[in-house]
């Protein structure tokens, strides 16, 4: 087994753009669930809408700013479509609607009837030009050890993590304010907040839009190092984001970031170790395809252990969860 390579890959995940994208999506989900108590089981749909909302205009020749604004606008519209019928109802209805809506949009972009726009099951590629064009880093390879990348890879990482930082600051500013107090009140008991003269429906909608918007930006970061593939946006993606959020702590600022880093480092390590063990013949009864699945079984087990033994996550406040709510 090449331990240097395995560890190098794992460490590289800490700052990978995928980690940044998942962190952003988890920050958005934290606004939904952690702070406002909205059960959004369709965060994958917001990433999908961000990805397609960015890629389709870009391929049609739109400049970068227009494509990004289009992605965000689409996610806002999607949040309204989800929220208008469900946010007046009990929380569980939103959960059902979001999980269904996420599947609906995935099937829509996969239909062959829309191949000219969405590429159907093949997805989209070739949309990186506008983003690469504004890269200020001269061509070349930079960095050291496992952190050695070319100028485009560095550019994605810098932009991705700057966006994560900005999103964290945004959430921090919101949640220390009276606005944050209202949404946290809604999480606890929305009728009580209503009885104090707050327009609960409006606040829930604002939270849904903000978290969804962060999800769509995550969707853009997610596709910049790869192609748009509709198969990436299954409910599995949503539950990875949930795992990350719960791992770090649902209503915390750094939780989603550290949660995402740990999630990807662990996935990379287990993959490296399992593959290494298979190649060296230590696991003769497992194929490499099966090893890929075993990683996710381990993720499932880890999530179960987490919610049983540390429900507040890494950064969560133990005291907050010591009361049954």
């Amino acid at each position: 087994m090449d331990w240097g390579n395995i560890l190098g890959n794992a460490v590289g995940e800490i700052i990978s753009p995928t980690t940044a994208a998942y962190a952003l999506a988890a920050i958005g989900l934290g606004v939904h669930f952690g702070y406002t108590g909205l059960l959004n089981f369709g965060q994958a749909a917001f990433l999908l809408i961000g990805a397609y909302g960015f890629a389709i205009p870009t391929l049609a020749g739109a400049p970068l700013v227009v494509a990004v604004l289009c992605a965000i606008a689409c996610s806002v519209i999607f949040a309204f479509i989800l929220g208008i019928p469900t946010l007046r109802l009990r929380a569980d209805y939103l959960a059902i609607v979001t999980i269904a809506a996420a599947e609906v949009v995935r099937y829509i972009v996969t239909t062959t009837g829309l191949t000219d726009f969405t590429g159907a099951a093949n997805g989209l590629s070739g949309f990186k030009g506008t983003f690469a064009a504004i890269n200020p880093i001269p061509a070349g390879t930079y960095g050291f050890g496992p952190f050695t990348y070319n100028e485009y890879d560095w550019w994605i990482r810098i932009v991705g993590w700057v966006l994560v930082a900005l999103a964290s600051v945004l959430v921090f500013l919101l949640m220390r304010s009276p606005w944050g107090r209202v949404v946290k009140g809604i999480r606890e008991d929305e009728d009580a907040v209503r009885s104090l003269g707050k327009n609960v429906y409006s606040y829930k909608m604002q939270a849904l839009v903000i978290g969804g918007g962060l999800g769509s930006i995550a969707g853009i970061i997610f596709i910049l190092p790869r192609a748009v593939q509709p198969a990436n946006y299954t409910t599995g993606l949503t539950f990875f984001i949930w795992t990350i959020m719960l791992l770090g702590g649902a209503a915390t600022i750094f939780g989603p970031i550290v949660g995402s880093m740990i999630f990807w480092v662990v996935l990379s390590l287990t993959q490296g170790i399992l593959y290494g063990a298979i190649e060296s013949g230590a696991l003769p009864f497992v194929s490499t395809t099966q090893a890929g699945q075993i990683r996710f079984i381990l993720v499932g087990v880890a999530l179960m252990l987490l919610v049983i033994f540390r429900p507040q996550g890494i950064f969560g406040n133990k005291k907050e969860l010591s009361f049954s709510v």
Partner: protein
Amino acid sequence: MSNLDGTPTLAATSPLVKGEIRPGCAKVDPIVIADNVTRQFGGLKAVDVAHLEIPRGQITALIGPNGAGKTTMFNLLTGFDKPNTGTWEFDGKSLAGVPAFKVARAGMVRTFQLTKSLGRLSVLQNMLLGATGQKGEGLFRSLIKPLWRKQEEENTARADDLLARFKLDAKREDYAASLSGGQRKLLEMARALMSKPELIMLDEPMAGVNPALTQSLLGHIKNLKSDGTTVLFVEHDMHMVMHISDWVVVMAEGRVVAEGPPESVMKDPAVIDAYLGAHHDTDLGDLMEDGPNPVIEAERKAHDAHPEADEAGYGEEK
């Protein structure tokens, strides 16, 4: 109005009422006027109130046996439930069909029978949530602290003042979930007061509160009246009703069956009829005899023990 034996007497009057006292009578200065409010749950007419007026600046008790429609009436008036028919106005403004949060903003704030303290917010945060017109509650203004810092400081000062009055100041930073049931009742009432309501509607403020704490709650409700707030409360504890209310409205099977000052309303045959099922072995008239009233007794003892306290007998629950 008639005597217990059913013989008609001279029409009873009261300084609060225009003309004769009867169910649905007009008040001299009403704060709430409701007309023809009905709410049907399947075949059951939970509320069927033809006319009801709540006097301004007074403590009004809404009593009645279980299932009389008191809480449903509360829910309807405050916009938490929608009636099948009916109109009502508060302070001259029609509130029929107005959503709950706008009712609260209009100055009609309620509490709940099952307390709704916001468990994973601190006691202080619970209080601050009650303040109205907060600049920092707007999405964009919330991001810039200088826009709302001063208002937040003023609200915090007011919250601290109220917490001290309700003897919750020691719990300021604790999560509301760590409070006892009685303390949560106090917190909910204090939180409702943060919005400086014109009318506060308390749904069973004494339910589940120990007798010592009851004393302090009674004091708070009386203080509300002296501050000029109108109080409407639902309560099953007859001693409390007799002791602090200025006016009593009795509901049974969804209707207002009697109204009147507490001294006389219990003698109304309609009230006795309404309670016969649930309280057949309690003579409600007993409360009016000259015998010792346990509430007054307890209050006097407490006052003797702490003559310096202006509100008699704070009992703190630990």
